Each structure stands twice: as C-alpha cells, then as structure tokens.
C-alpha cells in the first residue's frame, strides 16, 4: 500500500509536513484552521531561557516572492512554555518539536535539561543555531563548525530526546556545519533557516525593519535551500529535514528527492493556514498515482555526471 508516512530517525511522522518554528506560535491559532492528524509535526516558536519581548518597531517587510522578518524571538520563556503551552501542543495529535535558541552554549544546555523532564510530551528538540534576528549567540555559534560540535555534544549529554540542529544558510559551507552537528551527536539537521537580508525605505533612508536586517523566507529562497539540503544529504549519515520556500506538493517532492526525509513549511503556512492539509492531500494523490511509499523517494536525486 502507498503512504505518505515518513521517519526522521527514530521519530515517525504521519506525513513529511512539519510546521516550521515561528510560523504557528504554539499551534493554537492554526488548530482553528486545520486538524493535525495528517501533519508530520509542529515546531514551537523559538524559546529562550528567559522570556523575550522581541525586537521593537516594524518587524516585517515584503520582498519579491519573499518576506523579511525580524521578530527577534519574542517568546514567554521555556518555563512558561512548559507550564502553559506544551500540553496544548502535545494534545494536537502530531509530533511535537520544541525549538530553542540561546545567547550562549549554557542556555541551550539548561533549556534542554528542563525540557528533558517532559520527554513524554516532546518528540524532538530543535536547536536553533541560526536565528539572524538576535544580536547575541545563535547565528554566531551556528557559523562555527567547532562551536556547533561542542554545543551539540554538550546538549546531547543532558537529554535523551532526539536532537535536531537547525542550520543557517549564511555560511560558506553548510556541509561543514552539518557535519559538525552530526559529529556532536545530532539526530537530524534542519536546512535552512532564513537568509540575512535588508529592505530600505528610500523616503526615510532607513531600513524598513527597526532591527535593520531580517531573515528572508518564502519561495524566493527555495533554490538556495534545495541546493543546501542536497549538500547536507551528500555528506551526512543522519537524516536531513528540508526547509525554505516550500509552498506546494511539487516543492515537497523536490526537497525529498534532494535528500530531505521530511520538510518544514513556514511562510506558506503564514499566508495560507490550510495549505499543509491541501499539500498532504496532494501528496497522497501523488503516492497513489505513482504507487510509491513517499519515503522511498528520499535522496533519489541523480546528479549529472
């Protein structure tokens, strides 16, 4: 029988479609638009140790086939999340991925330890080493293979929950950062987070975003994401989760062929909250029509010699 079920290492998903971090908060609003039984998983908004108010002023700018955001990790902090949001996410009948971001390595370790008290409600922890919108930590660690390796292995030692490492595309070689994550003990890598970009208002001669720069997401970045997913897939033994500009079932198939065991969908969910279900339906149709298990196409890309 055909199916759209996939696995990311030990985590089995109803479909390859995961809602990306920061694009559904903690799932409450989205749950008013879709049911989650055919959704592979849902990532929490990026959490920090202490609550964060996020960045001031304008946080969004539209760009050709894309958007820049500079939310800056507004979130209630990991403890509040555990007390108030985790149970709701766990009730959604899908895999729960908790996305965490730190100012420094210790933050990640501390958050992972606290989350480790709730392994029954958490299917994976996603280490966000790639948020471009906070001045400290995160992307700086995320562009250094040695820091990634050390961080991941330290976090690994405090939790039994599968660890996914979310990589930044703003590096010379994502294969190297991905390998470092694997060496540190990651169970999977997620590629990619947003590309660092800027928008300018010519009337005020100021950046549109109060944070000056922001993260570029949406269809515009898909070709870069697809290339990076394939680069990761070719060097890694652990699964790759694709992300970046996915907005329909063809995009999902492209990422899976390039090597993604599953995909995360961000901007497209923001714009069309029901799209994950539509895509799930279309993927089922595709699997049916082509009489395949969707997971069989992972990494089937045949490069030209």
């Amino acid at each position, binding site marked *: 029988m055909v199916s759209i079920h996939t696995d990311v290492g030990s985590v089995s998903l109803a479909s390859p479609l995961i809602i990306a971090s*920061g*694009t*559904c*908060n903690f799932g*409450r*609003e*989205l749950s*008013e*638009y*879709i*049911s989650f039984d055919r959704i592979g998983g849902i990532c929490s*908004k990026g959490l920090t140790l202490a609550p964060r*108010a*996020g960045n001031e002023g*304008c*946080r*969004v*700018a*539209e760009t050709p*086939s*894309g*958007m820049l*955001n500079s*939310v800056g990790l*507004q979130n209630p902090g990991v403890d509040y999340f555990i007390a108030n949001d985790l149970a709701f996410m766990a009730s959604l009948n899908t895999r729960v991925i908790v996305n965490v971001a730190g100012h420094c390595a210790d933050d990640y370790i501390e958050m992972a330890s606290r989350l480790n008290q709730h392994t029954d409600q958490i299917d994976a922890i996603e280490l966000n080493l790639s948020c471009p919108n906070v001045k400290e930590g995160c992307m700086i660690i995320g562009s250094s293979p040695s820091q990634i390796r050390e961080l991941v292995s330290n976090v690994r030692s405090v939790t039994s929950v599968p660890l996914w490492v979310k990589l930044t595309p703003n590096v010379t070689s994502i294969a190297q950062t991905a390998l470092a994550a694997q060496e540190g003990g990651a169970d999977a890598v997620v590629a990619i987070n947003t590309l660092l970009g800027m928008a300018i208002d010519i009337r005020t001669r100021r950046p549109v975003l109060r944070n000056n720069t922001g993260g570029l997401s*949406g*269809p515009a970045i898909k070709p870069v994401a697809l290339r990076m997913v394939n680069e990761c897939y070719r060097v890694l033994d652990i699964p790759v989760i694709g992300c970046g500009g996915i907005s329909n079932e063809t995009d999902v198939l492209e990422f899976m062929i390039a090597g993604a065991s599953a995909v995360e969908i961000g*901007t497209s*969910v*923001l*714009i*069309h*909250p*029901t799209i994950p279900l539509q895509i799930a339906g279309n993927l089922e149709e595709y699997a049916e029509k082509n009489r395949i298990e969707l997971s069989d196409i992972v990494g089937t890309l045949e490069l030209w010699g």
Partner: protein
Amino acid sequence: MKDEYSARLISNRKLNEESSILTFFCPDIAVAAKPGQFVNISCSNLLKRPFGICSADPESGLFSIGVREVGEGTREIREFLPDRRVDVLGPLGNTFPIDDADRLIFVGGGTGVYPLFFALSQAVKRSIPAISVCGFRCVGDTCMIDEFRNCSDRFLVSTDNGDMGIHGNVLDALSGISDSELNQSTIITVGPEIMMKNVAEWAFDRGLPCFVSLERRMACGIGMCLVCTCKIKKVGSDDQFENKRCCADGPVFDAREVLW
C-alpha cells in the same frame, strides 16, 4: 473549523481618485463579521493585505471593504473585476465595544471611515445614539459622506484645506460638540495614528472612554507570526508594557492602554 475562503467579487465601485468600495459574496464572512474586524485579502504579491470590514449582511451573504490605493497591492486590488474569486481570511481580530455603550461618537480619518461605518450601522440597529465626525484632506478625498450623514444622529465633516465642512482637523470638529452631547459617550476612533492619539488625549481630558483601531504591517493576520506587535499596557500595571498582536489581540484597543 475556520477556513480560507474563495470570495466572489460582486462589485467594485470607485469613490474617488484613490479609493474604491469592493463588495464580495462570502456568506461565512458576512454572517460572522462584527464591527472592528478586518479581512486579509490575497493579491499577486506574497502577503495578503488587511482591510477593515465596512459592511456585512448575513442575509445576502455580502460584505464590503473600502480600499485606498497606496502601493502595489492596493493598486491591483482596485483593478479586480467583478466575478473574480479572491482568497480571503476573515473575519479577523477583535471588535469595537459598541453594545455596552450608552452613546457613541465615531471619529474617523482617511481609510478609518470604512470600519467605522460598519460600527455606525450596528449602532443604528441597536438604536444607540451616535455622532460621527470625519476628517479628510480635501473635498476630492472625501468618501462615504452621504452614508455617514444618513445614519448618524449628527454628522460633522472637516477638511484640512476647508473646502468642505469645518476648516481644520477632527479635533476642530469635535470642539463643536456640546458637553451634554459628550456626556456618557464612548469615543471610537480610526484613522492616522497621530489623529487617534490626539483624539484619545482629548477624550482622556474629558474622562470619556476611547477605543482605537491600530494598523501594523502584518503577515499571517491570525496571530501566528508575531510581526504585527503593538506596545500595550500589561494587565494590572500602570507603566509596564508588553507586545500584543495587532491582528489577534487587536486591532481594537482601549486608548488608555496604548503606548503610542
């Protein structure tokens, strides 16, 4: 479950050089819509565009929005032809607290008049006495004048250059309202931020409750992405503010809670 609707455009009527009223057929939205709420409308650009709901009729299944052309998206939307199907999310956001009011004063500027007109229509239905004050730049800029005049117990209009109604802004117009008319009134104001701020101060000085509808650049419009934040007073605090979502916690806020 909520859904993303494919609304059929029924008519697209030009009000003036810059503005048009678009009427859509979409029973789900027309039935659920309440004054103060907005819809998020697809165009060719990636992000949807938010517009306050200007009217909604559960019987006919129609709702309308007023659109002023300020950029690419609104230019395209003003050119939509009848019968076109448009992806719409809505109704979104919270509502004006009309039903609790004894008397209402609506103060609108620019595109603020559209959502206010929906509120005014509701007040009329509820038989709540209502005064309306609308400010425009000039006579060529005015819209919905007749509608406001017909529905309001009293209607004042001001123009910046004085070529229609009171010469000045809405505050100048407000000064023409007597204390007895103000008594027990709730102020609801929608328009440019600086106007709302001034009206809020004016209301504060007179001890009148005042509600404003904020505008922020939005992406999802439904509370998921946190790009549309406004600084709002923390519950139980006098000087601490927190980031609230304009789309889901607003767009209507008690003016006293807003950090401008």
